Structure formats: structure tokens, C-alpha cells
């Protein structure tokens, strides 16, 4: 795993080395009025013309000391920007991820159990839509219908009024997750405000990202229903409910667990688009802005950060798999 992380950092570094030093120096510039002479001085100071291996070592050392450079898009050091943007994304993931998994598993199971009925056809069409519709278009459509036409579910993470409350003295930001903080502060008006604006982005992510799980769950459930142990269970007199829940679905879940890592990667890609469209200033939004404005420090940090999270998630998925699958657990 460490090896993969080193590889990822090398890859990120190699990508950014494609840019000329004059653009990479942006990571150290903290204001927008810098003369060419000062730029050259900065390039010399931070050794951006040095041989690549030397620069790589310096970059990694800096990172291990917690120095990630200055981000123009966050107009603050990268780490500070990160603490501001990260909670916004975490909050959306906390809402979306469980819903994605539950929707996928529920509709997939439903399709398999009611195979070839209208219910099955509807769930299959839903999965196909999730695969084919671009995330950004679905988001725009949702906004057009709900916000543009019906005038509900506005974009943004929080309204100005609620923001004023959040930043007032009487209000404590315990976790920086707006909804959770609101409950802890017993401010239900803030909670509803934030929750209300979370509906469309969540819906957008769920429709797109549950398709893969839905489809896999359906096929693996069908396979599991055709196994001999189902016959055995039926012969022993188990009712339909036990049959489906304990015998079929447990086994059908295994491949779904393996795929959940991929779902998570897609979710992160979906966050970039969803946060951009619904104007939620999270990591995805930051990444998109950084890419547009050549904010090298932020791009390197974001890619590395998301890569690290993804590697960790995959590790967790492997551990869960090992725990759930008796064949692995007992060997």
C-alpha cells in the first residue's frame, strides 16, 4: 500500500513537472503582483530549475513537514483552504454514500426477486439511466425543474442568514459539518436550511452512482438464487423471507462489497461536477477551480489527498471482505 502511495506521488509529481517552472512557482506566490525579476528569484530560491529527483525529494520533505504551498483559489495556504473545504464535502458524502449503497442493494435485490416483472424492468431502466446520463446534465435538469421552475431547493451550501448565525459568537462550530453542528447547537432553523440545500446534490449523486451497485446486486442475487443451497434451504422449510434475506442476499453481497471501492472513486469524480453545479464549496469544487486557474499547489494536494483516501478505502474494503467472507476469514 505504501508502495502504491509512493507511486501515486511520483505520478502526480511527474505530471506537474510537465509545466514550466514559471507556472509551478505559483505555489509559492502569495499575491498577484509579482514582477518577472521576483519570479526568477523565487524560482531560484525554491530550486524549481533543479534536477527532477532533487525537486521530488524536496517536495516530499516539505509535505511531510506539512508545507503544501500557497493556493490562489483558496487565497490561503493549501492546508488552511483544505480545512475550510473538506467538511463541506464530507457532509455531502455522509448523506450520499449510505443512500447510494442502500438504494443500490435494495433495488438490485428487488429486481432479482421479481425478475421479469414490471418492477424488474423499472429498476433495470433506472440502472441504465444512471450509466448513460452525464452527471452534469442531470444536475442541471434537477436545478432547472426544482429551483428554476418550482422555486425550491436553491443551490449553495447554506443561506446568508444561516451563515450569519453559524459565524456568530453564540454558535459553536464543533465539527464544521453544518447539519451536525446545528443539531449540537440546537438550531433547527440552521439544520433545515443546510439540509434543504443538500437534497438535490444528494439526489444527483445517488441516481448516477447507485447504478453500478444496483446492476451488480441484481445479477449476483440471481446467481445466488440459482445455487443448490437455496434448494436445500427450501427443502428444510425456510419461508421466502428467510430464504431471500439470510441465504441469498448474504452471499450476493460479496461482489458488491468488492465493487464499493470503485463506487467510491466514481463518487469523488461525481463530487467535482456536483459541487461545481450546485455551488457547494468543497474539495471537488476546489479541484475544479484549481484546474481552471492553474493553481498547482492545490491540484497536487487534491490529487494526492483523493488518491490516498481511495487507497485507504480500498484497504478497508479488503478488510471488510475478509471479515464477511467465511472462506477468507477461516483460511
Amino acid at each position, binding site marked *: 500500500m505504501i508502495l502504491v502511495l509512493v*507511486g501515486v506521488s511520483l505520478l502526480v509529481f511527474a505530471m506537474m513537472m510537465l509545466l514550466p517552472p514559471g507556472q509551478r512557482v505559483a505555489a509559492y506566490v502569495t499575491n498577484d503582483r509579482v514582477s518577472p525579476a521576483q519570479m526568477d528569484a523565487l524560482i531560484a530560491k525554491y530550486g524549481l530549475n533543479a534536477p527532477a529527483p532533487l525537486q521530488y525529494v524536496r517536495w516530499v520533505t516539505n509535505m511531510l513537514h506539512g508545507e503544501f504551498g500557497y493556493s490562489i483559489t483558496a487565497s490561503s495556504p493549501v492546508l488552511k483552504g483544505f480545512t475550510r473545504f473538506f467538511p463541506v464535502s464530507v457532509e455531502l458524502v455522509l448523506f450520499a454514500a449510505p443512500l447510494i449503497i442502500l438504494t443500490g442493494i435494495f433495488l438490485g435485490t428487488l429486481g432479482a426477486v421479481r425478475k421479469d416483472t414490471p418492477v424488474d424492468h423499472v429498476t433495470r431502466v433506472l440502472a441504465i439511466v444512471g*450509466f*448513460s446520463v*452525464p452527471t452534469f446534465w442531470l444536475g442541471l435538469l434537477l436545478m432547472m425543474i426544482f429551483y*428554476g*421552475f418550482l422555486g425550491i431547493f436553491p443551490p449553495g451550501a447554506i443561506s446568508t442568514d444561516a451563515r450569519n448565525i453559524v459565524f456568530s459568537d453564540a454558535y459553536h462550530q464543533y465539527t464544521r459539518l453544518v447539519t451536525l453542528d446545528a443539531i449540537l447547537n440546537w438550531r433547527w432553523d440552521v439544520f433545515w436550511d443546510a439540509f434543504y440545500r443538500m437534497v438535490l446534490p444528494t439526489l444527483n449523486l445517488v441516481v448516477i452512482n447507485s447504478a453500478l451497485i444496483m446492476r451488480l446486486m441484481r445479477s449476483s442475487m440471481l446467481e445466488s438464487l440459482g445455487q443448490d443451497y437455496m434448494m436445500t434451504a427450501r427443502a428444510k422449510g425456510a419461508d421466502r423471507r428467510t430464504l431471500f434475506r439470510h441465504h441469498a442476499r448474504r452471499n450476493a453481497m460479496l461482489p458488491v462489497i468488492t465493487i464499493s471501492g470503485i463506487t467510491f472513486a466514481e463518487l*469523488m469524480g461525481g463530487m*467535482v461536477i456536483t459541487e461545481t453545479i450546485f455551488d457547494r464549496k468543497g474539495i471537488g469544487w476546489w479541484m475544479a477551480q484549481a*484546474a481552471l486557474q492553474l493553481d498547482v499547489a492545490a491540484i497536487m494536494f487534491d*490529487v494526492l489527498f483523493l488518491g490516498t483516501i481511495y487507497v485507504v478505502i480500498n484497504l478497508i474494503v479488503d478488510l471488510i471482505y475478509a471479515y464477511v467472507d467465511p472462506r477468507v476469514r477461516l483460511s
Partner: protein
Amino acid sequence: METKTDTRRLNTIHPRLRELLFTMRRFLKNPLSVIGVSLVVIFGLIALLAPVLQPPKYADPYKIPHTGFRIEPSPPSAEHPLGTMQQQYDMLYGLVWGTRSAFRIGVLVVAANLFIGIILGVLAGYFGGTVDEVIMRITDIFFAIPFLVMAMALVVAIGRGLKAVVIVLIILGWPSYTRVLRSDILVTRGKDFILAARASGASHLRIMITHVLPNALYSVIILASLNIGTTILTAAALSFLGLGSETGTADWGQIISLCRSWIVGTPGNRFAYWYTVFVPGAVISLFVLGWNLMGDAVRDVFDPRMRRR
């Protein structure tokens, strides 16, 4: 359902033809497959006939002609059958040439991915050992970063534009083919007929090309068909984010990004600009849907495990 006489009649014809008939019947039985292939064919025709359907006005046909600079999109009219986008770019022209552009990008990227992916996959799967280890660790690294995020970073590094998007998708897209092909080859490699070929003195290259590859190729081809859709979605997403083509290029993602400011209508008519948001996205969705359904159809028809069910 085949009747008895039907089967007997089939048995008298050449086995190859019989297989073909079986394949066709299998394919026509599933309405989704037929829809998928029809969609791909229709889009293919639009792409091929673009110069006839919408004769280009400039030397570069991928530039959408626009009549005026008025920001506000205008609704469908005789002159602009699908209306215009922001700055009066003609929607129909953009979508027709966008189809051609999508085909070019999709086919080019996936062909290049296949080429790289197959070579590395065959090397890794057939030789195993150190070669396998090195190639697989490299694919691990590629899989360790979310695709869209890495694509964004690489596009920035190369320098924005449609060309950069294509290069990036080629660089990043091959690992999935390598993985799938490698695991298929690992299965094939152990089969007796490979051993027989080796014993009869066939060279490594010959075994690879005539024995191993054809047996392991199906899943890769299915993956390729499914990936054309995904490739176009990613390219469109990059253009939408502003990293792809320039404003006014006939490119689907670019067209939608031109339309994103128009989700809220005028005070009197809240759906005033629905056409400018709805139409281009629907076109992308149908295109991707077509390739996805076709990928499924190819799997149903050719994959030996699904075929006889």
C-alpha cells in the same frame, strides 16, 4: 421457440452459417440490443453525413456558426430548428458536428487504449514473473487515483484543449484492458492446447497471437464497447468544466457548459430556456446509452458463458 423441423433444416446448412443465424436470432430476441445498435448506427450515420446535413460555413467545420452576439438563447425557429445557444450559436449544427467529434474522440481513444492495453496485458499474462509484477504495479498506481480527478490534473499539466483531453484519455484509459486481458490469459495459458502447441514447437509469438489472444479477446472487446460511452462522458465532463475545447467548438460538453447559465427562465416564463439545457444532454445520454446497450448485446451474443443460456 424453435420447432423440430426448424432445427432439422438448420442442421443441413453449413455450421458457420448456422452459428451466424443463431447469433442473429439471439440478438434480435432482445429489444434492448436492437435499440442499442440502432442508436449507434443512427449516430454513426449522422457523424458520417455531417457535411451534407449541416454544410460547414468556415474552413474549420468544428466551429459552430453564430448569428450575432446576443447573450440570450433564442427558441427553435425555421432558421435554427433546435434554437440557438448563448451568443446565438446554432444548436443543430453544434450537435451534428458534435456527433462527428464524439465519434472521432471515442474511437480514437478506445482504439489507442486497446492497442496499449492488449500489448501490455499479453506480456504480463503470458510471461508472468517480473514482467507481470512490474506492469501490474503500474496499473495499480493508475487505479489508485479517481479517474476524473487524475484526468483533470493531467489536462492541466499538458495544457488545456480538446487535443490534450484526447491525449490524457489515451494515457489513462489502458489499465482496465490490461487487467482484464491478463486475467483471461492466465486462465487460457494453463489449458492443454497451449501445451500441445508448445510441444509441437510453436514460438512464443505464434502461440500468443494464434492461440492465446483469440481465446481471451472477448471480454476486452465487450469492455471496449462499453468504454466508448464512458470515454465520451469523461471528455464531455472535462469540456463542461472548461478544460476541453474552446467556446464555440462543436463539442457536446462545451455546448452544455454554454447552456448552464440558463436553467432559470424569465419571470413570466420559468421554463423559457428549457430547450437549450434539455436537448444537448439528451443527445449525449442517447449516444452513451446506445454504446452501453450495444456492449451488453455483444456480451449476450458472443460471450460463450452467456450465449447458450
